């Protein structure tokens, strides 16, 4: 057993920490307030190969392992969960399925520019009537000569308004059930694709989320990802990777909450002593630090399994479930530790608490994770 990160992983962590402190911390409150996508930060992330960490160099990525990517998402999310998630959605939800299921031409044409950061990717599965119940989707793709014609609408597409490449899901054969949905690569400028305005959200406000409307949207047959009918499998495999990203995001949020809580509780004096000396506060911090360590081990373990080419689906779901619930629980405590000051805009913990909530919802709600995990355990 070896709990030590490699020297490269440690260096990459401190480089991302430095990057985030320099380029993201100063704007995090502003982009939250204005729901703004920090394009200038993504330009710089692209220059440092941060937008394709686990993608092989032959496809424009950095060629590092998954664990390194998880560490980078964590450190970036520690400064801004929206920015960390935008990166995770791009890599985990869009680059990854093309890497795993795409053919050589698709990897050259779509993955390579994405992994270089020339355009961002997005993943469009959820529909107004189909969230947890993926099979309730109604979007269809009909083969017409050498094209597929897509009709229907997607919602809650992260990176929707800012992406250049979408991985979208539609029925090619509704009768075939789980084997009837297919995945497609849809470039942004495709006629018939309309990207909606981005939603105003409770938290994660700098991440852009929108509807996507497909109206007789015609894409060439070559843009089918994987085989016809492989869509559900592609979506589930993609989620296995994305959940490590959400776990990493949650850990970043949790670390930031702990940093804030430690600092504030040492400085704030009540009853003549720093509040950290009151046992009630100290114990909150103990629990926070403990859950953070546990969440981090779970997430790193899932990524390590992936890097060892071992099954990691259950572990990724556990990491996502545990880390996201810990983030929500302890950001609430971090606000508590700040008292009234934590409830005021401008306090970082206020943003952390709003940002934490989404981690329990997307890429499978906590309930959905428990279904995956219990399904695995009870098999």
């Amino acid at each position, binding site marked *: 057993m070896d709990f030590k990160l490699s*020297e*490269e992983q*440690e*260096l*990459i962590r*401190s*480089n991302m920490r*430095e*990057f985030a402190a*320099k380029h993201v911390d100063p704007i995090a409150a502003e982009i939250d307030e204005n729901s703004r996508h920090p394009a200038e930060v993504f330009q710089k992330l692209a*220059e*440092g*190969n*941060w937008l394709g*960490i686990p993608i092989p*160099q032959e496809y424009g990525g*950095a*060629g*590092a392992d998954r664990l*390194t990517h998880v560490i*980078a998402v964590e450190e970036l999310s520690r400064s801004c969960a929206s920015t960390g998630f935008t990166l995770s959605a791009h890599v985990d939800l869009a680059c990854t399925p093309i890497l795993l299921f795409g053919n050589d031409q698709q990897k050259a044409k779509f993955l390579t520019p994405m992994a270089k950061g020339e355009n961002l990717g997005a993943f469009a599965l959820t529909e107004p009537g189909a969230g947890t119940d993926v099979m309730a989707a109604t979007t269809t793709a009909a083969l017409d000569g050498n094209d597929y014609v897509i009709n229907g609408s997607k919602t809650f597409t992260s990176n929707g308004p800012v992406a250049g490449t979408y991985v979208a899901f539609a029925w090619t054969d509704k009768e075939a059930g789980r084997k009837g949905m297919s995945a497609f690569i849809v470039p942004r400028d495709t006629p018939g694709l309309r990207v909606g305005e981005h939603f105003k959200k409770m938290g994660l406000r700098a991440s852009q989320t929108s509807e996507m409307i497909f109206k007789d949207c015609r894409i060439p047959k070559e843009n089918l990802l994987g085989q016809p009918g492989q869509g559900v499998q592609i979506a589930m495999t993609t989620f296995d990777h994305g959940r490590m990203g959400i776990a990493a995001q949650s850990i970043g949020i949790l670390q930031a909450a702990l940093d804030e809580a430690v600092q504030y509780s040492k400085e704030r004096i009540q009853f003549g002593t720093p509040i950290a000396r009151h046992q009630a506060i100290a114990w909150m911090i103990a629990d926070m630090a403990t859950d953070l360590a546990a969440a981090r081990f779970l997430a790193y373990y899932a990524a390590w399994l992936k890097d060892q080419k071992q099954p990691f689906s259950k572990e990724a779901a556990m990491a996502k479930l545990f880390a996201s619930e810990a983030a929500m629980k302890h950001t609430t405590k971090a606000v508590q530790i700040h008292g009234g000051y934590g409830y005021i805009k401008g306090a970082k913990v206020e943003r952390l608490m709003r940002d934490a909530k989404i981690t329990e919802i997307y890429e499978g709600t906590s309930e959905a994770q428990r279904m995956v995990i219990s399904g695995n355990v009870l098999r």
Partner: protein
Amino acid sequence: MPEMIACFKWVIDEAYIRRGPEGELDLSSVNYKISEYDRNAIEEAVRLREAHGGSVIPVTVAAPEAAKGVKDALSRGGDRAFFIADEAFHDLEPSQTAAVLAEVIRSRIPHDLILCGEGSGDLYAQQVGPRLAEHLEIPCISFVQKLSIEQGRLIAERKVEEGLEVVAAPLPALVTVLPDINVPRIPGVKDTLAAAKKPFVTVKRDELSGKYEAHLATLLVRATQMERQCERFGTQPEDVARFLESLRKKGAIGQKGG
């Protein structure tokens, strides 16, 4: 095309130092980093290489744990590195570091220019650069905030007490840089991965001929404690008198007539 050496020190990241209960330094959970100004030295060498070609060779004298620092330096643009490493090289004095560097550089590393940070993040003794130049008998230009090579000569802008001084020197020369000289770039992911594959030479203590004895003994290291106090004073003459009296009482200024 200039061969450039960038000397760097692998130091404790001060953000991780904590104060123990007795005022001692608690180093139990510290991280290490390349001393800040040495990052500027490496960056400046990389910039000069971008303009003039040549190569950049990071060099450090350190304990073996600093291997990660060698990778870090290579990820910042070094072509190949020298790692002068030994258990005995924990906490070297500046005079020892300079003498060890001099022996290795003189015997093994051809050079046109040596860059050092003005001082290290831990001791900030500002001695290694000038001492090293003295050992090698080459010109030393300190406090440099702008540097260029023109027709084979160094042109350096020095920040001196009152204003600027622009000096020229023939190569080879040694320069110690201030942080204003550049903004070190943050290595990208590929830079870090590529660094692991770049060559470096490890030099051990027993390959050196000098004795390098210590001259200083550290008796005690203690954390200082800063206490903040707050008192309010008005702007009337009697308030000013009260303000001065208060400062005297605290020993912040001398006694009357004293």
